[in-house]
């Protein structure tokens, strides 16, 4: 190891700059949304913006500490770190509940959320395990252990209960996919129970691409329920009511068509026929799936239907169960092209309090209301840049540990970004998770910062690693 290098050598500056930019934009938004005219100073520590300044400084300090420590320790101490966060997740279950969940460790406002730090611990151990040389991705024990590493903290988090963090942990499944972990050992075990002579599977497509298929299935099912519920009319054909399901079929068709065209250009001549077959099969399978989901939903008993509709936010109840989303969408939608101007949010300021949690989980509301579509687009591009940058960093690592860890970071960031913004624009159910680096809150700010700084540190030392 070369210890004589300067601290900032090989730091990925684009990622660092975006990180700083997001934190400052978040702080400015909190200052606007939670502004209290009796405490106008940004550094008034009785106010949320004052506290966020503290969290910001603490996070940067933690980042400095991370940079002072050799990155090798994460690989070496992966299991102790993991066990430590699991211990915290167990301890937190014995704390008094705040807002119905035992998620906080500590006293009063100075508590931390172990679930936030569990993401780092899980990412490290997963990287350590899958990064082992000679690991066999087709092995039964590989898929079982890898899933266990993810499932243990998930179960503990579900016991708190904290649905948001629970959902975020499924992000790690995509990391398994990237590393080629196959579910075939499990699926084959079931398939080969079928007693048909001469039929013996050695490999399945489903097992290989299990995670994407699983998520596409879930996505299509939810989308079917969301879209198929309301029949619609086209102005082109007045008087004819189309079932909502037709819309879904149309979307699938368009998607398959686009996919086919992309494949035609991407594939070699020999595979062009395969492209048509894949597109056709995808259409049949997806259509069949959505039809089955739609059919069984319509056959459900009234109260079951109602419950599903509530969970999905299908019930038009703008002042009741759908209150938060309705207010949030009004705030975002009223921003217009250029927004209402800084400190001019009328719907989502903390003072008017129409959008609850407008400085934490719904921080996108005041931002989008004040900066409009231009601001929203800028923010979306910043996050996309950040996530893609992490992928680029991941792919340039020599060490499998570093790559796997980076993919975990990218997926966690993507989940938070996708769900947090998505719930403001009707694409996601309301799940309380923060917008990384942007939302008010110490735990998320510190854990996301540490997660990012570990990545930066690993990246800066990528040439040192020999394995």
């Amino acid at each position, binding site marked *: 190891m070369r210890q004589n290098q300067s601290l900032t050598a090989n730091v990925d500056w684009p990622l660092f700059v975006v990180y700083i930019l997001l934190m400052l934009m978040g702080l400015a938004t909190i200052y606007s949304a939670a502004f209290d005219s009796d405490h106008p100073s940004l550094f008034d520590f009785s106010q949320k913006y004052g506290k966020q300044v503290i969290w910001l400084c603490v996070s940067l300090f933690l980042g400095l500490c991370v940079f002072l420590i050799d990155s090798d320790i994460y690989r070496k101490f992966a299991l102790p770190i993991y066990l430590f966060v699991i211990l915290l997740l167990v301890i937190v279950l014995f704390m008094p509940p705040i807002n119905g969940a035992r998620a906080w460790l500590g006293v009063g406002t100075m508590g931390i959320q172990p679930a936030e730090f569990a993401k780092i611990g899980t990412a490290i151990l997963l990287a350590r395990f899958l990064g082992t040389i000679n690991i066999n*991705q087709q092995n039964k024990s590989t898929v079982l252990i890898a899933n266990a590493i993810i499932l243990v903290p998930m179960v503990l988090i579900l016991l708190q209960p904290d649905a948001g963090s629970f959902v975020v942990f499924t992000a790690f499944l*995509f990391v398994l*996919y*990237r*590393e*080629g972990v196959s579910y075939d050992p499990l699926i084959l075990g079931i398939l080969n129970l079928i007693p048909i002579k001469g039929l013996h599977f050695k490999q399945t497509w489903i097992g290989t691409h299990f995670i*994407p298929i699983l998520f596409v299935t879930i996505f299509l099912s939810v989308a079917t329920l969301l879209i198929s519920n309301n029949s619609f009319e086209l102005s082109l054909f007045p008087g004819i009511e189309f079932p909502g399901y037709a819309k879904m079929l149309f979307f699938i068709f368009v998607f398959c068509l686009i996919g086919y065209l992309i494949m035609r250009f991407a594939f070699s001549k020999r595979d062009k026929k395969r492209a048509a077959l894949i597109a056709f099969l995808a259409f049949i399978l997806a259509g069949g799936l959505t039809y089955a989901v739609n059919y069984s939903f319509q056959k459900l008993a009234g109260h079951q239907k109602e419950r599903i509709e509530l969970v999905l936010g299908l019930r038009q109840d703008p002042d009741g169960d759908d209150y938060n989303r*309705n*207010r949030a*969408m*009004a*705030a*975002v*939608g*009223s*921003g*217009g*092209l250029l927004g*209402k*101007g800084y400190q*001019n949010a*009328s*719907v989502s*300021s903390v*003072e*008017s*309090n*129409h959008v609850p949690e407008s400085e934490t989980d719904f921080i996108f509301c005041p931002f*989008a209301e004040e900066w*409009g*579509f231009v601001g*929203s*687009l800028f923010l*979306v*591009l910043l996050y*996309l840049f950040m*996530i*893609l940058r992490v*992928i680029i960093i*991941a*792919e340039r690592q020599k060490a499998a540990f570093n790559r796997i860890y980076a*993919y975990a970071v*990218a*997926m966690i960031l*993507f989940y938070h970004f*996708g769900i947090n*913004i*998505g719930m403001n*624009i*009707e*694409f996601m159910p309301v799940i309380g998770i923060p917008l990384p680096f942007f939302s008010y809150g110490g735990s998320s700010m510190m854990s996301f910062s540490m997660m990012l700084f570990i990545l930066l540190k690993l990246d800066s030392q990528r040439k040192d690693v020999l394995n």
Partner: protein
Amino acid sequence: MKFEGRKYVFIVIFILIGIIYTFKLFYMQVVDDSWKLRAQQIAEQRREITPPRAVVFDRNGKKIVSNKTYYNLMMVEANIVDLDTAAFAKLIGWTVEDVRNRFKEIIVGEGKYKNPHTGKTTSNYQSIRAYPFLKELTADEISEIAPHLEDFLGFYEEVSDMRNYPYSNGANILGYLSEVTQEEINKDNFYTPGSRIGRSGIERFYEKEFRGIKGVKYIVKSAMNNVVGSFENGKYDTTAVQAPPIHLGLDVDLQAYGEKLLQNKKGCIVAIDPSTGEILALVSSPNYDPNLLVGNRKIRENYPALLKDPAKPLFPRPLASEYMPGSTFKLIQSLIGMQEGVITENSGFPCNKSVVGCHSHPSAQSVTQAVQMSCNPYFYAVTRKIIQQGKSKSDVKDAAIGLQKWSEYMHSFGLGKRLETDITGLRPGVIPDPEYYDKWYGHHQWKFSTIRSISIGQGEVQLTPLQLANVAVIMANRGWYYTPHFVKSIGNNGPLAQFRKKNYTMVERKYFDPVIEGMRRVVHEGGGTARRARIDGMIVCGKTGTVENYIGSVKQKNHSVFIAFAPMNNPKIAISVFIENAGGGGGTWAAPTASLMIEKYVNGEVKDLAKEKYILDANFIN
């Protein structure tokens, strides 16, 4: 790496989601306006600010109508959350039962609306609309309540203005305000529940000139419905603009004096400046203090009693009471006679009491003398000549032709039709025309002898005191008048155009002099009937009337009537006085009353205190 290609799965997903989110954000924020409307519903509130109504000054610049600030406790039902009724009742000093009843009252009070298309009946009441829960609280009362309102979501205070009358005179002229009805709200979006509208008098006639321009304030409200601040720093706010002050031709001191003179009497005084048509005083007695009908609370307390009062204080007698004019009518008869050429100013007729009763006096040898002595047979003869001019051989046809002509003359004097004065509640009076009698007696079933009582202002002829005062104006002006009106100017604009147009009668200027000379003698010569109307140092021209009247067939005491103008050669005031059931003649009560008014107006003060006391002491009610 074997699985390196899978990175594209990730990159494609990230970019795809980014594109989808961007499109959705673009649609929500830029294309679709529905979320902007929703945001408005949620966070913004449009509050209308009604300016105080225009203030009113009299002709001498005295403020006679002003505004006083009151407070309403407003309620928006949709915003009420977990109301602690007991605590709320305690705060406003009511019982819980009262509070509950008030809620019901508000809902029921809004009435119902029947949709003509669907036939569905729905309540006009809307839970998202603001209604006054308590009205017209004083500053002291609201200061007890307002600080605690934050405990009661859905209630807030609102400033409102109410009329204030520094002089308690002229109630029937000024009129009063009351709350708008649902129909009025539907018709004109200026009004919202609880707004006030002019209900009578000039407040009603000039409603639009009084109400001003509403202001609008957009505020940001919180989820708890508190006001957070102005919306976009008040970019869209407009200020309420009070209507410019309204100046009346009224002389409030003269008005007050007239009301005082008519105390304990039923009757009216109408005084007009003949040179402009401005009404100087319009007294209706008995009347009421306009401050009694300010605001709902007082209206509820006082209105029923005023309405039930047999003396009818709410009834604007000078505008709406139609009296027989009695002998004052003779002025016009003589003018028409001369204009028609059926008499000259030197025509004489014997005082033949066999056709119509008269008092003892020598026979009149001229129009002047006839007016001076108010000879009934003389005017009987004159009117007969006007009606029966021999234009047809048939008496009945001849009478119809004559009466038609006569009624046209009368209309040119502003009689038998409504004067278009700027006030509501005007009556036209009655000037019978052939059609009128055809209905009574049948076509061509009548002639002069049938209708002769019109010649001395009895019988079917009826006119209002305002019309009679206008006759005095015509006499003063020798043949023309401006339509009598109250409003002299609105802001910097003069009176309405219709009050700037001279109306000429059908009688030429030259025929007025002998009649006016007669009017002078009525007051100033020995044989005149209105010697009590004399004023030192001023020539008053007048004419008395004594009106016989009946309730059913029971004869009542005569009404005492007098019209006059003064000074003779430079008239400053024209006046009519009616005193009901005073007994005696026009000269006994009405004439001295008129002269006191003239003296007060022209000289500024009354020196004849004995005359004043004589009128003040008169009591014809008890």
